């Protein structure tokens, strides 16, 4: 008799579980620090972008080219960030990465920075409009932009080695600094990130 009750309770429990499992999933939100490393999907994320930018710029400003330029020209070099191409198999927001690079560069205080080509278009439109609509005292001069001495360009590539449920993701970020006047490449570096991503086969 006791066993019968156990059986019935078991079946009842399974039935309730099945019906409940058809319902919508709940969602919770927890605030976390922006510096906290959180890998969810294994894809390129904000932490990768920030770490690579920091390492890349640390390497770049520790080289002798800045001192050589200052000695030769008696001023800080002016740098513009060119295209950082996404040649990977993931949709990477290269814009975020470019901003991380710019921030690290500017914070180093060793170089001056000018707006990227896309940003310049908007600023130029504004300057042109000022010639017609702003007062003479406040309108900014045309053809008074600071020309960049160097352009920083780069690319992000991936190599994926995958088997069912497991992936080795290898990211390579290549950057190079090119002298705008001479096309001379004065610095090159690459940073690599390797991730092992394992996905569970089963869950409850």
């Amino acid at each position, binding site marked *: 008799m006791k*066993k*019968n009750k156990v*059986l*019935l309770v078991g*079946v009842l429990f*399974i*039935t309730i*579980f*099945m*019906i409940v*499992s*058809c319902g*919508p*999933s709940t969602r919770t939100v927890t605030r976390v620090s922006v510096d906290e490393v959180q890998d969810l*999907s294994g894809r390129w994320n904000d932490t990768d972008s920030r770490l690579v930018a920091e390492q890349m710029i640390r390497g770049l400003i520790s080289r002798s080219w800045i001192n050589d330029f200052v000695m030769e020209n008696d001023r800080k070099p002016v740098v513009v960030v060119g295209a950082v*191409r*996404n*040649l*990977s*198999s*993931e*949709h990477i927001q290269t814009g975020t990465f470019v901003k991380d690079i710019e921030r690290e560069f500017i914070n180093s205080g060793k170089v001056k920075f000018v707006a990227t080509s896309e940003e310049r278009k908007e600023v130029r439109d504004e300057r042109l409009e000022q010639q017609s609509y702003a007062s003479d005292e406040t309108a900014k001069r045309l053809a008074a932009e600071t020309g960049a001495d160097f352009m920083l360009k780069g690319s992000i590539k*991936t190599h*994926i080695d*995958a*088997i*069912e*449920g497991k992936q080795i993701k290898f990211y390579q970020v290549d950057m190079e600094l090119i002298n705008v006047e001479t096309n001379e490449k004065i610095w090159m570096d690459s940073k690599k990130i390797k991730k092992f991503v394992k*996905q*569970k*086969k*089963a*869950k*409850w």
Partner: protein
Amino acid sequence: MKRIFIFLTAFIFLLGIISGCASMKTSKKQFSGINKKLEIRDFAGAISQIESSKDKFYKEKEKVLYYLDIGMLYHYNREYKKSNEFLEKAEFAIEELYTKSISKAAVSLLLNDNAMDYSGEDYEDIYLNVFKALNYLELDKFDEAFVEIRRINNKLSVLEDKHVKMANQFNLSKDKTNEFKTGKSKFHNSALGRYLSLILYRAEGKMDDARIDMNKIRDSWELQKHICDFEIPEMDNYLNRTDKARIDILSFIGKSPDKKAKTLYIHTETDVLIIATTKEAPDGTKKSVGDTGELVDATVEMVDLTKDFANSVIDIIPFKPKKKKKEEAKIEEDKIEATLDIINWPGVQKGYHFKFQLPYMDMRKSQVAKIKVFVDDKLKLELEPIESVENVALETYKVKEPLIYLKTITRSVVKGLLSEKAKVEMEKQTGGGYLGLASRLATDVAVDATENADLRISRFFPAKALIGEIEVEPGIHNIKVEYYSKKGTLLFIDDIGEKEISKSGLNLIESFYLD
């Protein structure tokens, strides 16, 4: 005995409760009239029809299907950003659903595969990247389009490993005489994906990479003859230098396969299951689970049944009839035709007859036999097929088919035997009469209602992709793509209109007729 009766009653009660759930059966009501909308290119109407049926017909477990269906319709409606949003969601959901839910798998063993999350067919996972690439090209995001092409290649390389593992996991039995094998997919290379890669590399001036893609396209015809069962398109000039501008036309026709249900029957002999296409058993008896008037002599004890199920040696043996004299062969012919398989099933007794449903892929034929491209009102070329999406769909589905077959048979036999046992017990407990008849009827209804084939599949991928390339002077050109039937009837004119064709860069024109 009473314990068995209570267990069996609870089992039938459980089936009854769950069979009432609409999501245990594939619904296609949401597609009513949608083919006509596709034909008359009322894509906005089709989008609104699918969106309005989202809550009713696409449950959480069908989210991949919803994202694929709506994502493809947005593509055809030239809303490329929205299309990519949904196709991206579909791709991530497919990736996420690699992790299977044990609870849902358990429910599917009791009911049917509709209880599980739809995790997408392999071909859907591959072609969603093709359409995402096309969306990005339309949005002028060249690098992003390339990301999609790389993802196709990554997925193709994973595909075969995945299915070899599935077969290994199923071969659990120690003393089996035959290996159970999954179907082996020979689809490793998408000519359409390679074609897109080729024209993108060429537009970038990376001719070595373009040449590699060209070789891979040719390999497709060498290594996947059953998928590429048509002539390889003429592409000799694709890698040559030219002073002219190139227009590349990519056309999609028809609709990808649908899934339909095939009703089959299991007739049991001692230790053997006979899978047949007819209700009639090889010995001439004709009875199914649905026949309630006559009770089957069920003598297998519940304990033995579960023990046998756990220890079953499951081998699929292709049916090979022994050679017989001509006269005997003629008499046997009908029976042989009706017999699909014989499966060793130790412990099962003679005389049971169960009905079950198996899903299969059904091609949806396109009327289009010829596609002509006119530039500035002059016939320039006829498009040639580069990929049969429907062949790829069938090929990749083949891998899963034996697994679905085995799982369905296992479920049908266990469910059938339990329900027969339940009917016998109920008959004893109720003493027959109207109450006994009602309980037997309820048992059959519950079992029948839960045994449905999983017919879920995305509806809006095309059946075939065709290509062609035309060299013209750079400038503005008027382009028309005409679709003809086998008899030469003009089915549809896709008036692309005037397009600026530049010498550098990519001039890819997409056209489609989803008849």
